[in-house]
């Protein structure tokens, strides 16, 4: 970007070439250099600078504070964890694989004790060795209230985790994590958890050397265990500059390719500007990607119409479901027939259109995402067809005593996410009208919306919601929403249907004991169908991510784990 003379020349020439250039611009892409457009086909080489253009800053760049799925995109360049996500396209990318550890973990027979051995020759950015004690310390500090932000599982699963307040207040440490030697670490859980290897992908499982810990300041320069180290972190992750960690060795890391020499993360950008820059692909932007900005419906239409641009769009699926939620404690949603009637009346094709069309959303009739790793078992318990079945809905309403229709309020957020936003609410309002249900819309500011729907005392009866997986499995998808023991009366509650069914709870416990993840997946799928019968939710759609990347970017890998382009795999040369 630092080309003053070029800019000056261009401005001088502007007046002359304005008409010509405008004409050329109208004829489509000016660039006939298609070598980058082929993406994965071109041979990747080491070197160059990868630019990441994001709207949200990479805040709290501290492994204790990050809430990631599978270690995150940018964080995973700096923090290695005991296990990690498989860096492969599609469904293969939803598998968990070893990272710092030699395997994905060795459970005892009831999956309450998990043992890991570190690979040999692991080093930090300063050349000092990575030890199991550092991993223990990294996990312990994530319990400190000063470093809050991570996922709740460690606290719920580790013996003594519920009361532990981190190493700053409690010097004793967590007894449930043992480090018998520098390469071995053993975790003691308070209940069987067959999915512990998935949890070990999160950044809390990254090593932190105690001597280098600077508490809340650690995020400014966290000590790298990955292929890149933080050279500069400006304004809490607004701009991150990463350079090679020369002590990282590819021979100990089968997952990260680390082709670029340098990574420049710039954020605070408007999403339309990000997409504009990626499509223009000028200068440094030719080697740019985004890890947080999707193409919107209008942008996608423009991009699809241009062959060269369309070749630079990555498509990804993340385990995520947008749905309608009912609170059965609020009338008339206490009557299952009313909930079923609404399920029948839903016009999924208009909802999908409101979400940006079929290339950005796939109609959903199951709560679990439509991916094998989740145990996806197709079912459609209240068949509404593509456009809804108002006759069936009316019939059920009449049975429930609402012969002359009924009036309900649908609560949604006022965000612009095409998920819980007004567009979706309006599509539902239109569909339900055909079934004689008058829907009043209640749009709330985002914080207010989130507070209301996650508070047992204020939860509305009928609202839009969404849920994404912490890892690609049925466990973190179903348990927080439908496990009766996870109902929280005085805090953030996610079991919004207040389901407390002993057979469901028991099945969750039984599946958690399984360490054969394929076996577990099948049973999550079956459980999903069983819960679906209660009609506590109406699944609407699963989103599809479409993201542009610059013309010099190659080796595109998009896994079903997170559905977005993986910066650890891309090359810019």
């Amino acid at each position, binding site marked *: 970007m630092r080309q003053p003379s070029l800019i000056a020349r261009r401005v001088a020439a502007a007046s002359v070439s304005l008409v010509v250039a405008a004409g050329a611009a109208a004829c489509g892409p000016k660039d006939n250099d298609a070598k980058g457009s082929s993406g994965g086909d071109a041979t990747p080489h080491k070197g160059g600078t990868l630019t990441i253009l994001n709207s949200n800053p990479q805040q709290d760049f501290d492994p204790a504070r990050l809430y990631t799925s599978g270690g995150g995109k940018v964080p995973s360049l700096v923090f290695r964890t005991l296990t990690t996500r498989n860096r492969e396209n599609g469904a293969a990318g939803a598998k968990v694989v070893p990272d710092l550890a030699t395997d994905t973990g060795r459970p005892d027979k009831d999956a309450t004790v998990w043992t890991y051995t570190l690979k040999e020759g692991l080093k930090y950015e300063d050349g000092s060795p990575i030890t199991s004690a550092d991993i223990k310390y990294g996990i312990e500090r994530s319990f400190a209230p000063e470093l809050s932000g991570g996922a709740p599982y460690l606290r719920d699963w580790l013996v003594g985790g519920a009361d532990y307040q981190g190493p700053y207040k409690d010097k004793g440490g967590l007894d449930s994590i043992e480090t018998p030697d520098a390469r071995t670490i053993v975790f003691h859980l308070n209940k069987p958890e067959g999915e512990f290897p998935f949890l070990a992908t999160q950044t809390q499982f990254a090593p932190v050397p105690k001597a280098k810990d600077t508490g*809340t300041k650690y995020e400014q320069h966290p000590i790298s265990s990955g292929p890149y180290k933080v050279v500069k972190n400006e304004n809490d992750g607004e701009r991150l500059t990463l350079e090679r960690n020369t002590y990282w060795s590819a021979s100990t890391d089968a997952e990260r390719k680390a082709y670029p020499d340098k990574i420049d993360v710039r954020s605070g950008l408007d999403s339309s500007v990000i997409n504009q*820059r990626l499509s223009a692909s000028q200068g440094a932007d030719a080697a740019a990607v985004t890890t947080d900005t999707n193409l919107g419906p209008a942008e996608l239409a423009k991009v699809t119409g241009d062959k060269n641009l369309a070749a630079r769009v990555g498509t990804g699926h993340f385990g995520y479901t947008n749905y309608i939620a009912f609170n059965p404690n609020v009338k008339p949603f206490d009557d299952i027939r009313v909930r079923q009637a609404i399920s029948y009346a839903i016009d999924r094709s208009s909802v999908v259109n409101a979400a940006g069309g079929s290339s950005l959303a796939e109609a959903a009739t199951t709560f679990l995402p439509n991916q094998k790793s989740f145990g996806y078992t197709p079912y459609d318990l209240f068949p509404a067809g593509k456009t809804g079945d108002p006759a069936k809905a009316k019939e059920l309403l009449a049975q429930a005593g609402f012969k002359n229709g009924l009036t309900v309020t649908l609560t949604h957020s006022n965000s612009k996410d095409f998920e819980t936003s007004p567009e979706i609410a309006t599509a539902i309002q239109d569909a339900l009208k055909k079934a004689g249900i008058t829907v009043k819309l209640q749009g709330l500011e985002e914080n207010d919306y989130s507070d209301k729907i996650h508070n047992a005392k204020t939860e509305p009866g009928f609202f839009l919601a969404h849920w994404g997986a912490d890892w690609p499995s049925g466990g973190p998808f179903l348990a927080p929403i439908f496990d009766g023991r996870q109902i929280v009366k005085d805090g953030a509650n996610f079991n919004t249907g207040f389901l407390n069914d002993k057979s469901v709870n028991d099945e969750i416990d039984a599946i958690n004991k399984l360490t054969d993840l394929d076996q577990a997946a099948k049973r999550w799928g079956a459980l999903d169908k069983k819960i679906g019968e209660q009609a506590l939710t109406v699944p609407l759609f699963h989103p599809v991510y479409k993201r542009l990347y610059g013309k010099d970017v190659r080796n595109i890998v998009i896994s079903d784990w997170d559905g977005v382009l993986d910066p650890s795999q891309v090359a810019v040369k």
Partner: protein
Amino acid sequence: MTGFVGFALRRALGMVITLFAISVIVYVVFYVTPGNVAQITCGPRCSPAQVHQVAEQLHLDDPLYVRYWHFLQGLFAGQDYSTGTAVQHCSAPCLGLSYQSDQQVTQLILAKLPVSLSLVFGAMVVWLVLGVGTGVLSAWRRGRLSERLLTGITLAGVATPVFVIGLVLLIVVCGELELLPFPQYVALTDDPEQWAWNLLLPWLSLALIEAAAFARLTRASMLETLAEDHIRTFRAYGVGERSIIGRHALRGAFAPVIALNANNFGGAVGGAVLTETLFGLPGIGQELVHAVNVVDLPVVVGMVLVIGFFVVVANAVADVLYAVADRRVVLT
């Protein structure tokens, strides 16, 4: 000069009172605003026990007056805070720490302010030149086609939102014509030339909108002056049109232009959110919007105080300039 010193003192006192009032209002408003700060800071999935620990850590359970008292203490005496591994000092005037990032708010302001000032100062030059110039021209050429055209353009300027002008500029100038690279902020101290090149489009987009108001104001005040008796007398005496416009009519437009400029300048320091967001300028406005969204009270108070400071100072400067421009005005 005693008159001026008295004026300055009164103004300074008024400013302090205003800023205190602002800080109290922000504290009260945020106290009743939806959004559970501890839950947001801790994360959506935090358990009640964990949220309680975070609330304790951030002193969120203290009553409003206690929290405000801590704020005042920090402001005048500084405060010590723990990073977990060490105790650090935030020296007075300490505006506290961000709930979200644990950064000192004063440092955050120091990082963001140069960006906002760079944007607003540059844009101000453009909007004054463009706005006053257009205003003078259209007053001078009243009733002719050129005047109609200029009025039309300025009206379009007022009516077009900044994100439209900015986005069109970005798409055309940077995307299609490739005359300029997409702007990314470069500090003035790092490279003045790059600083100016990268701010050119943001200056233009912000200024095009503001300029319209100045053009209309200048035109109206000039026409008002031109309709007055003394101008007719000048004309009768044979004073040239150029001199009438330049020396007399324009002078009449100075006062309102100065007042408007002061208002707009002060407001734009924290209010150019759309321009900052569109061009990725990490300024005060963007930070303030983010802080409001995550209910980060110390950052909001700090940012609002800075913005308030600039509005008040800009108004005081306007009053002085007003007096210079129009000798009939007495500084009180």
